[in-house]
Each structure stands twice: as structure tokens, then as C-alpha cells.
């Protein structure tokens, strides 16, 4: 019987391209019987074929035992096939390896060097903890082999065994030192490689080898090994600073003399990351002049990142980034070169250039850099820009026309005139269209990873050192808003944090910012895209907060209220809905106060109309929220979402009802209520609060935070099925309660206005009967005495150096008790906000929580 050879199998595969799977299945069946045969030649050929099929992705683990059999073959060619099969397909759980221990031991002791070599290679690959423990000494014995190519293999094999058998390290360490003096350069090189790997986890242990490695660096001509040694020193210098001085001489010599670009590069890299350039010793360059080492490295580096070879450009930029982080003054004049690399078609190079250029940002260059990056985001091939109806109002009228300095905007404007001269939107649209028509494939600027990096770099450059690079804050806000439209990746959280940060901290930009937020909110397409969790929703939520908080900076407008109760309201999540409603209340009360200033009959009618339309809108929302007939709203949704949303909705209803009562009759003067309502929200200015502030408030004596407030909480069963009223306990057994009633109870469970009185009377209480907001007691607590002295001091310091407006400390120290229900809106939870005025990074701070 003639079996297929490996060549037959491969030829067969090539001839059966159509039904490859079928052919392989057939071959596998043949192989299955072949490996069972006693003829070793046949068996080993079958294993070889399996090796090939393994490469194609077929599982060959079923033949592991046969592979071990072939490993035991006395013929070298067959043995090698067996070892290859083991190296390729064995894994840590392969049990037949237990059978191989003695077999490998025998091969390690073989007089045939090639057999030893194959066994070492195989063992290094398949080692398990058991094999490593059993065979460690056998391999160590081979270290003294007469053939150098066995010694180097044994070194590497021992390293792999040590990974599985850590106790072996003690035996390996002296051997390694000895092998560094081996007469064969390859063995030395292998020893160095092993030391490099070991030193990655524990560099301290290998410091004693530094003198010998230093000698090797000065004497060897093996570039591969030199690279390894130089790289190793980069990780050793941080833990032994004296090394830097030692390395200064040989490294600078290598840099001046070597012709191998790879070695030159690694030397420069090590000089930079190992901070050897910081050694204050001069170097003599090729023409005999004395020169600063750092400068020499910077000059040599120019060859790399200005090279025509892309690989050299890439590594050059990597090290330029490192140099930039350590010696920015040496890099700053390379701005133009790096800017060019930013437009490289190669994404790897672009990303590197991006990180370098973002480190280079200064007041002078920020504008150009951001402009370049924004144009990359806009001129994308595949990401569909969001042509937006209301953008022209953002763009051309206010922010574009007025702020031509805006990088993003001037780009957009340029495009607008380039394309059709029509509006911005059609220009954007046509850019998208024409790009798609030309069928250009995705460019580097289309990669989501790159776009994300670009957005992060822009934000980072602008906010670094407490906005130290910024000269025009309005430009910055405009850039952020532009990013909302052009980013094309999920950066909503980042952008909304930054918008909020700059608006809260920088007083001068607030009005401008509020205006842009209002324009975003009135952009129907943008708002239409907002769904819970989407990037847009996050930004809009922040826009709503800003509009509500600072609405008094703009002329009051009743239409803004509608912006804050948009059609997409239902699609937002609970926290976002709560923010929108809270903002709507503020805008509404602000508008009331404004119209009270020029009260007349027409104004009265307007107030009536607006108020009643809000009431109807709110009651729609409320009934959708809490109505038990709402099949979609479902009990679950009500139970999860409502507290913060419904409580605010009810607040708003109470306020509008109070206004409606106060304005029930036409009057010549505005009701006092209209004038005063807004005071509820503006009495105290909200400032950024340090995240560490809470920690500085000591717990007052006698306050036990562990003991529960009030009695024990009744179990859920009890709430859901309250005990029957005592009047007629037997008349209403539990089971007779209607499902609807239960649902209602459940749905009311979390509502603060619902008191579980055990009967249904509670539900019937009209909202109007509930206490008026004005009746809610407001308690002022004086926390000044509670020794948050440190915090107060630091705040005071900040206050002194605050550029943008003074803070009012005494206001901050007074806390209004929240009116029930206590549901704070946490606008931007754990936001990181360094203080704008502080030169040093400040502790984390969060924007004010809002009641």
C-alpha cells in the first residue's frame, strides 16, 4: 500500500481548491489509520502531514500520542518531525508529555549534536512545570557541551524552564555570568538575550553584570548583541544613576562611529530614555568639535524623522517624542517638520507625530495645530459629517462671522466659498458627496482610533496647564462645539466635561458659551439624534445644564423652555431627563422675572398662555411616566427611573400651578411671585468644588453614621402587600387585591409624595394639596466652625489669584438643606477639573452639585 507523502497532500490540496474541506476530511481519515501503523516511516509521514494541516487551522491534538511515538524514532529525520509536531500543537494540558520525560532526557544526552539541538528546541517550546523540574539538571549539564550551537540553545532552553520552574533561577544565574565569557560570540549573544529578558521583571538582580556588559559593549562588533545591551542599559540606568556617567563615553562613540542605522537608533533612544543626555559632559563629534550630548542626539535624530524611509521616520518620531518629554527646548524648532508628518498617509507615523505635536503646543502654535487637526477631521473620506440645519446660525452669523480666528470655522468658511459659495451646510454636504463620488477609500483620518486621538490631543493641548496655552477662550468653546459635530467618534463625555469646565471656570466666556449651547439645543437634527447613552445626549445634557444655570446672561426667551422639553425627551436616561427639567425650571422662572419688568396686559396673556402650555406638556410627561395603563413604560421603568425625574416634574408642576393661580386675574403690576421665583435658584452662586473638599469636613461629635435613621426598614413584601386595614380585616384578604392596585403600589413605592398608609386614600391626594414650595423650610447651617480651615485657606489662596472673578467663600460655607425630595442632579460626576487660576495641577474638583 502506498501512502500519500507530504508533497502528495500539498499537490492534492492545490488540485482540489473547490472542495478543499472534503479533500482534507478524506486525508485526515487516511492519516488516522496511518498513524496507527507500526511502520515508523509511515507514521512519521502522517505526523508531518498533520503538521501541515495544523498550519491550515485543523486541530491535531488527537494525534499527540503518535507525535510522542515519532519523537522516539531512532532516525533523526523522523525524530525531528515528531518534535516539530509537539512544538506546534502541544499545550500545557497535553498529558502525553508525561511519557516524554525520559525520551527527552535520552535525546539531551545523545552523542549526536543535532539530536540534542532538536530536543532543546522542542523542550523550550513545550515545557510544563513538571518537565521543567525533572529536566532542569539535564539541560544544565548540556551547557558545557563542546559545540557552541548546543550551548546557546541550552541557555535559551534553561530560560524557558526557569519560567515554569522559578527555583531554577539560582542555578541559572551563575551559569549566565560564565557564558558571558564564552569564546563563541553567538553564545555570548544568547546569554545577553536571556539576561535582557530576565532583567525586564527584576532589573536589580542584574546590576552586578553591568561591568561585564559594559566591556562587551566596548569590544563587540555583533550589532544584534550591541542593540540588546544598549536596550538593557536603558532599563538599568534609572535604578543605578552612576551608570549614566559611565555610558556617556561609549554611547557617544557608538553614535558617532556606527554605520548601522538600527544600532545608531537604539543608542540615541537609550541616551534619551536613560537620561544619559543629562550627563554634563561634552562630546567630540566627527569633525572634532565639542558639542553637548543632547544636542548631538537631537541632530542625529533629524536624519531619522526627515528621512525618505518610512521606517526611519517612524522610529525617529518615537524617540523625538521621548526627547520632547525630557528636553522640550531641543525639539521646539522642529515644529514645522512634525507638522508635515501629521499629514503623512501612514497612520503609524501620523499617530506618532500627533503625540509629539501635542506636546509641543504653545500659545503661538496652538492655533495652527488645532486648525490642521480640525481640517483632518472634516476632510474625511468615509465618516459622514453631520450636515446640520442650524449650524449656519452657529457658524456664519455669530460664531463664524464674529470669530474668524476660529481655526475650525475659518476652514469651514473657506470650504463654503470653495464649493458653491452657498451656505455652510450645503458646502459640507457637497464635500461629503464629492468625496463619496470619487470613491476614495478610507484614508488615515477615517480610522476611529485616530479620530479619537485627534480629539483628545486637541482638548489636551487647549486645557494643559490650566488653559495655559489659550489666549482666546471663545475660540476654544467654538472648537469644542465644532468637535461635537465633526468628531464622528464617541467623545461626548469628554467634550461635555470640557465645555462645562471652561464655562464654569472662565467667567468671561460664559455668555458666549451659553449662546452656543442654546444654538446646539435648537438644532433639531442634532437633538433628534440624541438617545440615551449616545455621545450627543451627553453633550446636550451639559448644554441644557449650562443654559439653565446661566440663562440670565442672555435675554430671556420663552422659546428656550420648549428647547429644554424636546421631543426626544423620552429617549434620554433618567439623569439626563432630570437635568433637562431642572434647566427648564430655571429658564422659565428667569423668563418670568424678566417679563415682570415690563408687565402689561399682553404680557399677562403671554404668561398665561406659556404657563398653561407648560402645564399640559408636563402633565403629559407625568402621566406617561406614572400611568399604570402605559404598557411600554412598564413597572420596571417606573421603578428604576422616576425618582429624580418625577420629583422634578412635580416641582415644575407646582411652580407653574402657583404662577397660574397668582396670574388668574389680570393686574397692572406683576405678581410678586413672578419676580421672586428665580431667586430660588440664583441666591447662591455655584463654584467648582474640589473633589477632596468632602474629605476635609470632619464628622461632628456625636454623629453616628452607622446607626440607621428611624426604625428598621420594612421588608419589600410588607410594602407591596401592606397589612389589611384594621377596620375589616377579613373583608379584604390579600389575594383579592387587584393586580392593578399592586402595580400601582409598586410604582408609587419610590415616590416621595406617596405615603403608604395602608389604604388607597393616599393616591387620591391631589398634587395641589401638597405643601407649596415656598412653605418648605429652609435651614441655614453654619459649617464655618467645623474646622475646614485647611480647605478654606487653600480656597482663599485660590481666590486671591483668581483671574476670572472672585469667589464668595462665606456663601460656600452655607448650605441650604435640600427641599424634599432629596434628589441631587449630579451633572458631571467625577470630573477632573484643575483650577483655572492655579499654576500647578490642583486636586480633583467637581462642578457644583445642584439642588
Amino acid at each position: 500500500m502506498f501512502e500519500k507523502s507530504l508533497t502528495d497532500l500539498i499537490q492534492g490540496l492545490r488540485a482540489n481548491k473547490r472542495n478543499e474541506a472534503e479533500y482534507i476530511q478524506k486525508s485526515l481519515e487516511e492519516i488516522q489509520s496511518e498513524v496507527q501503523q507500526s511502520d515508523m516511516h509511515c507514521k512519521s509521514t502522517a505526523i508531518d502531514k498533520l503538521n501541515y494541516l495544523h498550519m491550515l487551522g485543523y486541530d491535531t491534538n488527537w494525534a499527540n500520542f503518535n507525535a510522542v511515538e515519532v519523537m522516539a524514532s531512532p532516525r533523526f529525520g523522523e525524530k525531528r518531525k515528531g518534535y516539530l509536531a509537539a512544538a506546534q500543537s502541544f499545550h500545557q494540558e497535553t498529558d502525553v508529555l508525561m511519557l516524554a520525560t525520559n525520551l527527552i532526557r535520552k535525546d539531551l544526552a545523545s552523542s549526536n549534536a543535532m539530536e540534542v539541538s532538536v530536543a532543546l528546541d522542542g523542550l523550550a517550546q513545550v515545557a510544563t512545570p513538571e518537565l521543567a523540574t525533572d529536566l532542569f539538571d539535564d539541560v544544565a549539564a548540556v551547557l558545557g557541551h563542546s559545540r557552541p550551537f548546543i550551548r546557546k540553545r541550552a541557555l535559551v532552553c534553561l530560560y524557558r524552564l526557569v519560567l515554569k520552574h522559578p527555583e531554577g533561577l539560582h542555578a541559572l544565574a551563575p551559569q549566565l555570568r560564565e557564558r558571558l565569557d564564552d569564546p563563541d560570540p553567538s553564545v555570548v549573544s544568547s546569554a545577553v538575550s536571556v539576561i535582557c529578558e530576565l532583567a525586564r521583571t527584576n532589573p536589580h538582580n542584574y546590576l552586578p553584570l553591568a561591568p561585564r556588559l559594559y566591556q562587551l559593549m566596548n569590544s563587540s562588533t555583533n550589532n544584534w548583541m550591541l542593540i540588546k545591551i544598549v536596550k538593557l542599559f536603558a532599563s538599568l540606568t534609572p535604578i543605578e544613576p552612576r551608570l549614566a556617567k559611565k555610558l556617556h563615553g561609549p554611547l557617544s562613540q557608538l553614535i558617532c562611529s556606527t554605520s548601522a542605522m538600527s544600532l545608531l537608533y537604539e543608542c540615541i533612544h537609550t541616551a534619551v530614555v536613560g537620561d544619559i543626555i543629562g550627563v554634563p559632559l561634552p562630546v567630540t563629534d566627527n569633525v572634532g568639535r565639542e558639542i553637548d550630548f543632547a544636542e548631538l542626539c537631537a541632530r542625529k535624530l533629524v536624519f531619522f524623522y526627515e528621512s525618505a524611509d518610512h521606517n526611519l521616520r517612524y522610529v525617529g518620531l518615537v524617540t523625538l517624542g521621548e526627547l520632547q518629554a525630557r528636553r522640550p527646548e531641543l525639539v521646539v524648532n522642529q515644529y514645522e517638520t512634525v507638522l508635515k508628518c501629521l499629514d503623512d498617509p501612514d497612520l503609524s507615523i501620523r499617530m506618532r507625530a500627533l503625540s509629539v505635536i501635542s506636546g509641543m503646543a504653545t500659545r503661538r502654535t496652538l492655533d495652527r495645530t488645532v486648525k490642521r487637526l480640525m481640517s483632518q477631521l472634516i476632510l474625511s473620506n468615509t465618516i459622514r459629517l453631520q450636515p446640520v440645519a442650524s449650524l449656519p446660525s452657529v457658524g456664519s452669523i455669530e460664531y463664524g462671522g464674529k470669530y474668524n480666528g476660529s481655526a475650525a470655522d475659518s476652514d469651514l468658511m473657506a470650504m463654503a466659498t470653495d464649493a458653491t459659495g452657498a451656505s455652510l451646510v450645503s458646502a459640507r454636504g457637497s464635500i461629503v458627496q464629492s468625496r463619496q463620488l470619487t470613491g476614495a477609500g478610507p484614508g488615515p483620518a477615517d480610522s476611529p482610533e485616530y479620530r479619537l486621538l485627534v480629539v483628545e490631543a486637541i482638548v489636551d493641548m487647549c486645557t494643559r496647564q490650566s488653559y495655559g496655552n489659550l489666549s482666546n477662550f471663545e475660540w476654544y468653546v467654538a472648537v469644542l462645539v465644532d468637535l461635537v459635530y465633526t468628531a464622528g467618534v464617541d467623545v461626548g463625555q469628554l467634550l461635555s466635561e470640557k465645555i462645562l469646565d471652561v464655562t464654569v471656570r472662565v467667567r468671561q466666556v460664559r455668555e458666549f458659551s451659553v449662546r452656543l449651547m442654546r444654538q446646539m439645543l435648537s438644532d433639531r437634527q442634532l437633538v433628534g439624534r440624541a438617545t440615551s447613552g449616545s455621545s450627543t445626549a451627553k453633550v446636550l445634557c451639559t448644554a441644557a445644564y449650562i443654559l439653565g444655570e446661566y440663562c440670565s446672561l442672555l435675554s430671556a426667551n420663552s422659546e428656550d423652555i420648549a428647547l429644554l422639553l424636546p421631543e426626544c425627551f423620552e429617549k434620554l436616561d433618567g439623569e439626563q431627563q432630570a437635568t433637562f427639567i431642572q434647566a427648564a425650571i430655571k429658564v422659565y422662572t428667569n423668563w418670568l422675572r424678566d417679563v415682570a419688568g415690563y408687565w402689561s396686559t399682553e404680557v399677562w396673556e403671554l404668561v398665561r398662555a406659556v404657563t398653561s402650555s407648560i402645564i399640559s406638556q408636563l402633565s403629559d410627561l407625568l402621566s406617561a411616566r406614572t400611568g399604570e395603563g402605559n404598557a411600554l413604560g412598564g413597572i420596571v421603568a417606573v421603578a428604576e427611573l422616576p425618582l429624580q425625574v418625577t420629583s422634578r416634574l412635580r416641582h415644575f408642576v407646582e411652580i407653574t400651578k402657583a404662577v397660574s393661580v397668582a396670574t388668574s386675574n389680570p393686574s397692572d403690576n406683576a405678581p410678586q411671585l413672578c419676580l421672586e421665583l428665580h431667586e430660588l435658584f440664583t441666591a447662591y452662586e455655584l463654584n467648582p468644588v474640589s473633589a477632596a473638599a468632602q474629605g476635609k469636613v470632619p464628622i461632628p461629635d456625636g454623629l453616628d453614621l452607622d446607626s440607621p435613621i428611624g426604625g428598621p426598614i420594612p421588608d419589600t413584601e410588607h410594602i407591596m402587600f401592606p397589612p389589611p386595614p384594621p377596620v375589616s380585616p377579613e373583608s379584604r384578604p390579600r389575594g383579592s387585591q387587584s393586580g392593578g392596585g399592586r402595580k400601582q403600589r409598586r410604582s408609587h413605592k419610590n415616590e416621595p409624595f406617596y405615603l403608604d398608609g395602608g389604604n388607597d386614600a393616599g393616591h387620591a391626594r391631589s398634587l395641589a394639596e401638597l405643601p407649596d414650595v415656598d412653605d418648605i423650610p429652609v435651614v441655614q447651617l453654619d459649617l464655618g466652625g467645623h474646622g475646614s480651615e485647611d480647605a478654606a485657606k487653600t480656597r482663599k489662596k485660590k481666590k486671591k489669584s483668581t483671574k476670572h472673578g472672585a469667589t464668595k467663600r462665606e456663601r460656600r460655607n452655607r448650605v441650604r438643606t435640600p427641599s424634599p425630595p432629596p434628589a441631587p442632579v449630579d451633572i458631571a460626576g467625577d470630573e477632573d477639573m484643575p483650577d483655572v487660576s492655579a499654576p500647578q495641577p490642583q486636586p480633583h474638583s467637581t462642578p457644583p452639585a445642584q439642588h
Partner: protein
Amino acid sequence: MIKSVLIFNQLGKPRLIKFYEQIGTTLQQEILREIHALVAKRPDTQCNFLEGCRSMGTDSRIIYRHYATLYFVFVVDSSESELGILDLIQVFVEALDRMFENVCELDLIFHFDEIHYILMEVVEAGMVIETNLTEISRAVNEGKQLIKPATDHSRLGIGALRGFV
């Protein structure tokens, strides 16, 4: 260290798969596909480094060279020098060229085991043990001498036709 050496053609057909970590067959094929997708779309004018390979962990870089129809890919961690590995790929390919005289894809297809044995003389278990071409050829030829009698049968492979042994 070197995590993996892969050779595949422009269509992503594997010609050699070597992982120096023990990885299941399915994942190996996934990695092959991922790297092929990343590498094949890059024109030759772009640099030969890619940062990060999703299936091989964060500390991995793809360094490759493109020769005619084949891609030679090394996946390495941060302890290796990028330019050094590029030189190493060149050494490996030159070693193949010495063995096969003008090596082409067909040689790799029909002698996939020999490619393994040549690679074995350059890299052992992820560590480079030899970069000298003469030494590599010498060791490979020594192995060949040992199996010569065993392969002396009537079948003629492509290599035998060319008289490469």
C-alpha cells in the same frame, strides 16, 4: 522576545505559522486573519511597524516585510528593537534564499517543514540565537546531511528536480 513568526501570502494563506507561546489552533487562525487584514492593506510606501495586535495583548508590535507575494511578519514585545527585527527578517529571508536559490512562494509551500528547521536555527523559543548567515546555513546543512539517506527514495519533489540538496 519574539512572540510569533508568520509567513502568509497576499490572500492570507499561511505558509508558516510559529507561535512561541502556546496558543490554541482557533486563536492562531484568528491572529493570522487579523494581522493579514492589518498588513495587506498597507502600501509598500508605508512604514513596516504596527502598534498593537488585538489578539496578542497590549505589549505587542507587528513588524513585517513584504517580498513579492509573501509577507514575513514578526510579532514582538517592547524589548525588541524595531529596526533590529527588520534586519533579522532580512537575514531569515537571505537564509531561505541560500537554501532554495531564488526562493519563491512554491518553495515555501512544498518545503514548509524545512522552513521551520531554518527558522529554528535563527530563533529558539522566541529568543534570537543566531544572526550570522554562515552559521545558520552550516547548522541547517548539518541537519540535512543526517536525513539524506532517509529521503533517498524514488519520489521527486520540486526541490529534488532542481537538485537543491
